[in-house]
């Protein structure tokens, strides 16, 4: 009996100690968890999001030559195009057009939406995602009055 206790005792202590120590090791990780997300991350203004950067890339590649860097319709090729390209940064224009309108005009071109054929259709050149991205970027071009 006594000898059994002598054998069992240390084993038990070891097992319990082992379990405790492993549990402790896991504990700090758990403590770090409650960084549960707060309702909504604030929208960062300065750097563009990944999607907007993609949209900017599409804009620079396909649109900028006519519509200009700021969207004002003053790209270097604008003066060869009659009627001149739309001023995309115009707040009134931005307000009047929904995203769907802009997407439609981008995809079907000027001819498709009853305007000048000088604006080509990009529906077969850009993927729907790319069109969404560039429309997203167009929204950032809105001029602030002042």
């Amino acid at each position, binding site marked *: 009996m006594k000898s059994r206790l002598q054998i069992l005792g240390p084993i038990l202590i070891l097992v319990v100690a082992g379990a405790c120590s492993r549990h402790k090791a896991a504990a700090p990780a758990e403590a770090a968890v409650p960084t549960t997300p707060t309702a909504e991350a604030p929208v960062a203004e300065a750097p563009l999001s990944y999607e907007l950067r993609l949209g900017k890339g599409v804009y620079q590649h396909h649109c900028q030559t006519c519509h200009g860097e700021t969207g004002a319709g003053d790209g270097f090729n604008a003066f060869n195009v009659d009627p001149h390209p739309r001023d995309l940064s115009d707040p009134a224009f931005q307000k009047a057009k929904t995203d769907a309108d802009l997407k439609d005009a981008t995809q079907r071109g000027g001819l498709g939406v009853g305007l000048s*054929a000088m604006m080509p259709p990009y529906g077969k050149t850009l993927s729907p995602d790319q069109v969404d991205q560039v429309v997203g970027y167009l929204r950032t071009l809105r001029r602030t009055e002042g």
Partner: protein
Amino acid sequence: MPLRRIFAITSILFLAVLAVSPLKNALRPYRSFQRAFARLGASRAKSLQAAKVYQQQPVAIHQIWLPDFENRVDRCTTCHLGVQDASMAGAPEPFRLHPATYHTPKDSNRFGCTACHGGQGLATLENDAHGGVSDVESPMVPLRYIESGCGRCHTSEQVAGAATLSLGRATLERNGCYACHTVKGHEGFRSEAPPIETVALKTGGEALRRWLKDPKTVDPNATMPRFQLSATEIDELSHYVFSLAPARALADRVQAAATEPAGDVAKGKALFAESRCISCHTLEGKGNGSAPELSKVASRASAGWLLAFIRDPHAFNARTRMPRFNFSADEARHVVAYMESEFKDFDAPKEILDPLRVNQTLAEKGKLLFRQKGCFACHAPGAEVDRFGPALDGLGDKRAASLDFGKRADLARTLPAWLAAKVQQPGSFQDGLKMPTFALSPKETQAVVTALLSLGTRPVPQPYRSVPAVRAGLLPGGVVGALMDKYRCLSCHQIGDRGGDISTAPLTAEGSKVKRDWLVNYLVLSFTIRPILTDRMPVFRMTKDEATQLAQAFETFYLDPRIPEDPYAGQPATSRDPVEGKRLYDTLGCRACHILGAGGGYYGPPLTEAGTRLKPGWTYAWLKGPQKWRADVRCPNYGLTDADALRLTSYLDTLVKSSTASKAKRGGTR
């Protein structure tokens, strides 16, 4: 009594031990993440239905299992629950939607996460999964090097959509890394550095000394790295270089050229501009930059050498990318006279180009240094190249613990940090290392580290390997091959997957694209094709014979089977209707970008003589989908029907040079 007590205590302890495991599971962090995600999803949901779906998701381990991709099991989505959920755009981590890339979202279940991001897919604890634990086998790749993941499968030099990786691979090649390091696929690399025995013909003792001290201060475009040589070592190497005997024939050429009378500076200036030297060279920083800066070149190369070299660069350096210009004897003199008058370092001492009086003892020591420092890898590679640097294959999978950080106690103990420091300041790890300093910009460093991290131990499984779809560029032999070598077409143009990127016009399908007569005239006298560009092919003063031979060869070899020779074959006769084609040209708005006659945009190439230049088969194939032929082209795809594309083609084909002129040309070439 004590026995009972002992029994009671052990039972309780036993129960407690049994409870540890379920308790640990219940407290796993991913459970609270999943509950938080359910709340977030429900709060963002647009309908009650959708919100319920989020709330009813059972808490469980999620995984992507890829049995045919090294049996990967990626449990990342256990915490990163929103990566494929469109409503999680802009959500806080770890729930944010994965940004759209070439492979996401469509291939998420084919590649999993760790294929690109690295990390331990099986782990469900953040630290274990991300590899924050020291010396983990594959820690996560920092986002700035994420394109290394692309490079694991895409082994071609240029990878569309991975600009950093492509820049990195190009930087490795340009800086001659493959001359010392073995990398699979680059075993045949040879540096284009000049053979060492021709250097004494070109330069002087002082100029060489300055060059060896730091090549980049002499020429910012230099690809030769800085070797941290001491003043004595520079001296010894210089004596060695000047002790070498160049080939008799070359020495005679330089000597003969040096005694020729000087040419006319003004004529040389015009020739210099006409030859578009800055297509490759720079002049005070302006130009392409893949060849030496020329603004002070006359102070590091003698007039005799310049003249002899311009006349036949390939005799001096068989591997140079410089083409042979067909200057007449006088014209070459004019060009050199212009260079001698303007491209000088006016602060340099007069004797900068004086040859060194060789001291044999120093030269012997220099010979040893030439070997020790590894100069021979670039400047004298024989048939058997001794690549003494460590092989770089598998570098991307090295464990941080196996790296020698030497004196760099400041670095994070990670592979990317080690690589970045290694390519920027190789000498800072330990004294006496062979690797020289390359003076890479931060952007180039990032790119090179990305490219190095993409070198895995073993290739990815076959179905994941992306072999470039371009046809291998076979160079013709014989006369045409010799001509293409003489003009070094591949220095600028791409053929298949070979060649430089200076020209935007690959020659792979040139024969299907342009008409032979036009090509002959263009080769004889090249002009700029787009109104907004001043860049064009240099004028090589090709003879009409040479141009005809090349044009004929292009029409034979460089064809694309997808481009029809006669697009009208098998189509109704009504589709060949230039009048209807013109109407299409006007209504589609082509003139927004193209000049035709008096008006039109400045963006695309003018079409006034489109029929003289382009074959109808190419025009048709182009109109059916421009991006198929050049991925980044601005010309939009109008989705034309076959008939409309043919009508437009037939209209463009009628736009030729005035008939008398074209007749005269045709008579001359055929």
